[in-house]
Every structure is written in C-alpha cells, then in structure tokens.
C-alpha cells in the first residue's frame, strides 16, 4: 500500500504472489521458462495461454506441488521452496480435473477437508459451506454422481472451506454451462471483495475480461501482463473487421501477405490485424474495393491480441 506504484521492492503485505525466474522441465522439455510474476492481494489475476503452455505447472509450483528447477519467490510471504507446508495451510487449490472423492458424499468430502485442516467444528463448517454453494438438499449425494456444474461448485467450496488467503483455480469453468459459469464468476468476485486473492487460469475471453489483471503465457514464457486495456494497448495491433459473404477464401489469401499478422474468423465476421498499421493497410488495399465485403477499422479485441501472441510465440519458441 505504501510502496507506491513504482516499487521495485514490493511490500509483502500487499503482494500475494511474488516469484522470479521460475523454470521447470519434465524429461528434458522446458515447460516453464524464466517466469516472473507479481499478484497483488485482493486481486483477481487471470492466467491465459494455449494448452500445454505451462499454466498448470506454474500453479502447481506456487502451491508447493512441484519444485521449480530454478527460480525463487514467495507466496503469501512464505518461501515457495522451503515453506510449502505453511503455504498449503493458506492456499486453496482447485485442480483442473475434479479431484475430490467421487465415492464420498458432498457432506463427507467437505467434512474431510475441514478435519484435515483441523477446523474445530468440521460438521458445522461443512454444513455452512453446503448452504453457501447452494448444494442444500444434495448433502448425501455422492460427489461422483453430481453434474459438471455442481462438481465445480463443490470443488470451489472445498478449497475455500479452510478460509484460505489465496485461491489457485486451474481452468475451473472448463466444460461448464454459461449460466453456471456466470454464477461461478459472481462467486469469485464476492470472494475477492472479501479480501481473497484469486489466480485463475482460463481459455475464455469473457472471463479474462472480468479479471483485474491478466498474464498471457505460451510455451512456458510469460509474454504479456497487465490490465486488459494495458495488454491490448501494448500489443499495438491495428485491426479491421470484415463483414460480408464467403471470407474463407479471403482469409486464406490474406494470411501470408506481408503486414497481415493475423486473419481469423470471429462469429460472422473476419478480423484482420497487423502490428504495422501502414503495411496492413497496403496489404488489404486491393480487397477493399470488392463490393462482396464491408471493411471497417476496429479496436483489437483481447482475443485478437492473444491469437497474435500465440502466433508470434510459435515462431519464436517452436523453431
């Protein structure tokens, strides 16, 4: 709080996650490369990136489930290498794959977690949580029999039960219907309002836009971070939106052209973007006269930026 915006030495009280140079390899393949990041307390921090980009690995390093090959840092003020046990007491980790006991009921799962964290009234804590996540009436149902949306709520309930200070959510809304997704995000915002820090990985752009800050990670490299507006601004991308018919052919023709860094369909329109505004304009000039299409300059969306980043990182890191 009193460190100021330019603080190179962050105040531990206002920073939940502060790591530098994290590197992790599996079987000779580097999954996380020299990754540094800071997450402020009380913030919802979005973690974006393609599949296999190292998001899960980074999250696992943060909660002590993996040891980094190199790099250091703190999580809630505790050293991620030495104080894994202390971190585990204060961090709730929601795994990508449902990892509670399928053959235990909702209530039994929550009571197990409460007891494991040594909560004085495990039954009471479980009962309160069941009410909070709206599973009243399903207490005795086996977790394995719940639908995807309910499972995800139960998992969130289980990892918030021991009153953690930091939530690590690994693609919590994958495979969940839009209504359940919206409810879930309302809950996350409510938790953040209570002072919880939330690090959440996702593939959904609308979810990214609900984060206070986001980071984009690809092939283990953290490529961009900041607020959504900052990330878009930093990309310096110019975008044109094309509407009309049959732009499959147009997309293929534009894709290789100098100046066009990205051409991708968005719903019923085509987004054509480039980092060099002039080069992009000369590239699309021959097509703008065609009456089949309607060209309009537009703001790049977060998705444009990410697809562009993804394309660039592929060039840089995949050889």
């Amino acid at each position, binding site marked *: 709080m009193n460190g100021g915006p330019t603080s190179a030495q962050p105040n531990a009280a206002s920073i939940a996650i502060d790591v530098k140079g994290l590197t992790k390899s599996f079987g000779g393949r580097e999954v996380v490369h020299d990754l540094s990041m800071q997450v402020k307390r009380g913030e919802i921090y979005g973690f974006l990136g393609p599949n296999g980009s190292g998001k899960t690995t980074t999250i696992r390093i943060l909660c002590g*489930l993996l*040891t980094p090959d190199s790099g250091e840092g703190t999580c809630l003020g505790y050293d991620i290498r030495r104080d894994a046990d202390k971190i585990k007491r204060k961090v709730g980790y929601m*795994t990508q794959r449902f990892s509670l006991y399928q053959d235990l009921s909702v209530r039994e799962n929550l009571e197990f977690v409460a007891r*494991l964290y040594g909560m004085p009234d495990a039954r009471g804590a479980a009962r309160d949580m069941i009410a909070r996540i709206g599973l009243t009436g399903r207490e005795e149902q086996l977790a394995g029999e719940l639908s995807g949306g309910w499972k995800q709520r139960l998992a969130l309930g*289980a990892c918030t039960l021991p009153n953690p200070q930091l939530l690590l959510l690994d693609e919590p809304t994958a495979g969940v219907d839009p209504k359940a997704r919206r409810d879930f995000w309302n809950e996350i915002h409510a938790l953040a309002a209570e002072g919880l820090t939330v690090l959440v990985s996702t593939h959904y752009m609308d979810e990214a836009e609900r984060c206070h800050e986001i980071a984009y990670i690809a092939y283990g490299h953290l490529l961009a971070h900041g607020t959504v507006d900052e990330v878009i601004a930093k990309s310096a991308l110019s975008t044109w939106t094309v509407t009309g018919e049959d732009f499959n052919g147009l997309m293929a023709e534009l894709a290789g052209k100098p100046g066009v860094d990205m051409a991708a369909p968005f719903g019923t329109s085509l987004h054509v973007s480039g980092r060099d505004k002039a080069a992009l304009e000369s590239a699309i000039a021959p097509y703008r006269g065609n009456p089949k299409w309607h060209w309009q300059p537009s703001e790049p969306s977060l998705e444009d930026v990410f697809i562009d980043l993804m394309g660039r990182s592929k060039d840089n890191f995949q050889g």
Partner: protein
Amino acid sequence: MSATDTIRNGQDREPAFGFWRRSYAMLVKEFIQLRRDRVSFAMIIIIPVMQLLLFGFAINTTPRHLPTAVLLQEDTDLGRSILKAMENTSYFRFTREVHTVEQLDELLQSGKVLFGVEIPRGFERAVRRGDKPALLVAADATDPVASGTALGTLGTLVQSALAHDLHIGDPPEMPFEIRAHARYNPAAESRLNIVPGLVGTILTMTMLIFTALSVTREIERGTMESLLSMPIKPVEVMFGKIIPYVMVGFIQAGLIIGIGVLLFGVPVLGSLTLLGLLTTLFITTNLSIGYTFSTIVQNQLQAMQLSMMFFLPSILLSGFMFPFAGMPVWAQYIGEGLPLTHFIRIVRAIMLKGAAMPNLQYDTIALAALMLFAMTIAVTRFRRTLD
C-alpha cells in the same frame, strides 16, 4: 474419414473381415500397453521363474538335518554312539546341548529345535545290567510332515547303533528302548497344524492387497493432487490408511481362529490376549508392507502383481506348506525376512504349545523390525510433490 466415405458412397455394408480387423486393432493396442508397463512385463517373467526355483530347490517334504537338542545326563560311550547313529540317519542335527529338562522344553516350545534327546543318568549301566532303560526323544509334532519321517527312523536306529558301535555281543532282544514322544500334536493331525498357519496366510493375502492399492488408487483417480495440496504429512496419510484395516484384519483373524476352534477343534493352549496382541502386530506389519508397495508402484495392476510376488514366497518359504527346517540355508534366510514365517511360529506356539511371551521374543522382535523397516521406506518413498 472412412465412415463419411461409406455414407457418401451410399454403402451401409460392413467392411470386409470386420470382426478380425477390430479384434486385431484391440490386440495391437493391448500389446502396446503391455510393453509400456515395464513392471507388469517383468512380472510375466519373474513370477513363473521364482515359483519354479522355489518349488525345485527350496522345498523339501522329507526334511533332513533337523535341529535337535541334547540333554546329556551322563557322558558315556554308549550315549555318544547313539547320538552318532542318530546323526548318521541324516535326519537329526545336534545344534544345542542343554543341562536341564526345563531348558529342553523351552527350546521345543519356542521352536528353536524340533527334537530333544535325553540320555538319562545311569543309562549305560542300566543297559549293561539288562534293565532295558528308556531313551527319550521328544519331538515337536505341530508339523507332522517335518517330524514324521525322522521319528520313523528311530525304530531301526537301535539295531544299527548296536551293530556298528556297541560291543555288547549279539543280544537276543533290545537292550534299551527309544521312547518317542510326539508333543503338541500326538495324533499327527495336519489340521491342527494347518489352521493356525492359515490365520497367517489369509491375513497376509488380504492385508497386503488392501493397502497395496491404497496410494495408487488415489493417484489413478486423481485425488492425490488435491490431497497433496492440503497440509497433510506422509506419516499421517500412512496411519490414516493403515489403522482402519488393522480392525478389518482383527475381525478376520477372530473369524478364522473362531472357526478353527469351534469347527476343527484346534486348541488355544496359550493366552488369547497374547495371541490377539501379536496378531495385531502381524496385521500391522503386513499393512505397512502393502503400503510400501503402494508408494513404489505406478498403478493398481502393478500393486497387485507386487503383492503376488511377495505372497508366493511367503506361502512357500514360511513353513506354512512345507517344513521350514528342511529348506536349504539360503531359503531359510529369505524365510526369516518374511513376516509370515515369524507369525506362523508364534501362532503355532501359542495355540498348540501354549507358549508365552518369553518363548516368542525373537519372532516378535523380528515382526516389529520388519514393520518399522517397511514404514520407514513408505514414509521416505511417499512423494510429497508431483515432480
């Protein structure tokens, strides 16, 4: 692709040899998976080879060189000749010399020797006087297989001892008699021997598998990731997983012993409390070993196979099926490393011989040592991270 092609071509027909193609596809997949699972692949070789070697080399149903204790009340030529003749049968091996009857009884009760020979004071004089004195050979007959053949040789022993070593002339009748005393199981009923052994064997099989699957199941179901992210220590996981099965094992043991006593008339001569305590120790030892396997293997199949690999020598080398004393020394060393060996001695001694704690110290300590050894490995092997 081929499915859409079929539809486009308007053909609903099955592809030719569909049955064989699909079976072949499945077969190829299974072979690939089998090859990937190194441990399972190794077991395919190890289990039959191990079984063959154990049956071929280690098992001996007419055991020789059985440990025998001697109580020499007098030191005479005749006595020495008789002992020599006994050793010449190759069934007896004199491993201990004692000085009192109590010592002899204790050695038999604790199972350190299978036979005890007593040459009474004034034996030679009595023979020369023609009193036909008796020479006592006490046998631990809990395992009739182990003691039976050796006892059978005693009948002809007197003749050969006299013919070769004694200079008493050619007596018209036996100058002395050998009185064999088959202790603990005089009628040589094998069920008296098998039922106590079964307690240990059944417990080994069930306990091992319960815990061998416990950690791998958490890993395979994905619950390990959650568990590891919570503040729980390896020792706590282990105790939490072992203790419920101690109770299960206790119920099982009670069931087997109860049926043994009521249905098969097997006695429990010793203290039931002691039996219960040591059975609990044995159960915990097996659970710890199973749990250790669980921390080593990759999946549930491997866990089952490793349990199997442990169970096989347990049955063959523990003295449950075949006499322990008859095995070659190397097999006896392996046997000493198996909890079942020690428990079978304990349970037979308590149930059939009425043994008490002082007689069972060695086997109790061995069980406890094996348990602590397994637990230490399990706790150090338990992976606290997903690295």
